[in-house]
């Protein structure tokens, strides 16, 4: 004779539905988590890249530009300062003005790109003052100003995203609890027969806890893996069509990504397990 069947029946349609619900919710939650995480990372890289960049626009002749470059270069806290050539400037403007080049007679301000060492205090102001002293007509543009604006706004967006992920997780847990409860009501007869046969509450409950823990973990892992696959696929598509990848979310499977993908199934399994326990214990408490 074959070894005895488990005391609980195989999954029925209700549990299959629960699997689907948990899987879908975990997909959404971990996808949102991955997106939020990678948006954070992208904003970080982006802000890092522009921090320390100073642009100086010089009106006047080339001599003024060269002089301005020398002043900038000599300022404390500046690594390098270089004059951007007319052709480079045209290339930068090409997206807006077309690639046919600019008519010779349109004046383009000379541009100097300077990179400041990290945390050099108020370099831009110093350069600006010196240029003014020399009587040069120049505007100093410090990216770190707007990069801190950028940081602030990405922090706010990140916080909002995090809030959304949190809400999604809370919803997922609640829905898993409800669905588990519903799936279990159909098992009340089994609970009662086991109870009347002399099974202890903890024994009966643990049967269901194990079952729903496994169901939650399997469904959660499936959802999380689907989320990972979807994120990777989306990134692949975008990378195919654009080359400015640095603007895009970074999917590098960092520790955080791993954490999101690992925690999702555990959370789902735990939510299902706890609600199974609560439901069974509640049913049992109504029995003598």
């Amino acid at each position, binding site marked *: *004779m074959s070894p005895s069947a488990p*005391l609980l029946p195989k999954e029925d349609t209700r549990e299959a539905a629960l699997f689907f619900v948990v899987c879908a919710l975990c997909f959404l939650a971990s996808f949102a988590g991955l997106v939020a995480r990678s948006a954070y990372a992208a904003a970080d890289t982006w802000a890092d890249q522009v921090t320390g960049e100073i642009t100086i626009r010089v009106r006047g002749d080339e001599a003024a530009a060269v002089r301005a470059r020398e002043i900038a270069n000599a300022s404390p806290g500046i690594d390098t300062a270089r004059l951007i050539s007319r052709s480079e400037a045209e290339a930068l403007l090409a997206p807006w003005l077309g690639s046919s080049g600019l008519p010779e007679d349109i004046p383009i301000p000379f541009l100097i790109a300077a990179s400041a060492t990290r945390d050099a205090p108020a370099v831009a102001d110093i350069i600006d003052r010196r240029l003014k002293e020399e009587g040069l007509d120049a505007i100093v543009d410090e990216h770190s100003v707007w990069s801190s604006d950028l940081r602030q706004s990405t922090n706010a967006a990140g916080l909002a995203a995090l809030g959304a992920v949190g809400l999604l997780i809370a919803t997922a847990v609640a829905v898993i609890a409800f669905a588990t409860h519903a799936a279990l009501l159909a098992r009340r007869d089994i609970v*009662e027969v*086991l109870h009347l*046969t*002399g*099974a202890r509450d903890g024994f009966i409950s643990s049967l269901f806890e194990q079952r729903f823990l496994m169901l939650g973990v399997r469904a959660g892992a499936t959802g999380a893996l689907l989320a990972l696959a979807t994120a990777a696929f989306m990134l692949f598509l975008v990378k195919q069509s654009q080359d400015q990848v640095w603007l895009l979310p970074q999917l590098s499977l960092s520790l955080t990504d791993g954490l999101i993908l690992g925690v999702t199934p555990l959370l789902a399994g735990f939510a299902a397990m706890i609600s199974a326990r609560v439901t069974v214990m509640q049913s049992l408490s109504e029995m*003598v």
Partner: protein
Amino acid sequence: MKERNISPDTPTLRFDRVSVSYGPGLDVLADASFELRPGSMTFLTGPSGAGKSTLLKLAYLALRPSQGRVSLFGIDTARQSRAERALTRRKLGVVFQEFRLLEHLTAFENAALPLRVAGDKEKRYRNDVRELLEWVGLGDRMNARPATLSGGEKQRVAIARAVVMKPDLIIADEPTGNVDTEMADRLMRLFRELNRRVNTTVLIATHDMELIRRTPADVLRIANGLLSRQGQESGR
């Protein structure tokens, strides 16, 4: 054979002024008192809807009395903890009127359920359960699921499950309601065997007066919420 360390004087089952009401105007049992001596065999009879199943539910701890006290093996069950009541239930073998077999388990697994719940290993009980199922005429239906069994076959699986632990008290609700006279007598013999050989106390609800006449046992009668004992000596 199991050890019994209950004093021979302690009643197996005792009702003290037990009343049950399912709601206002739904009084099923009023002030019922009786006791079953260890090793006794008793029929509970009465018209349909009189409250036989209700009384048995009180006895197998599926229902709390509205008033009064139900004691098993000398202990007031209301004073027991849930874990203690679970252990008390393991000394009972119950045949439910509606069988309550687990649909996903085979006849063999259903019959063996109490052993599993009590933590026994299958290889230790396999032969006993087989023998028992053969005895109730289900030797060739052991791997069948309840859905594929006839009413009488289900009933016999339910009976096998009730007696498999050689319980101290068997409580059977219409255990012969779905079988022919010959099988009914065979099943009664099973209860009698346990009653005689292991001193099992037996309480059987039935409205089959013929069965009662054929089987020597005490008779409790319930009608209009009142319980009365009818003189018929246990033929031991």
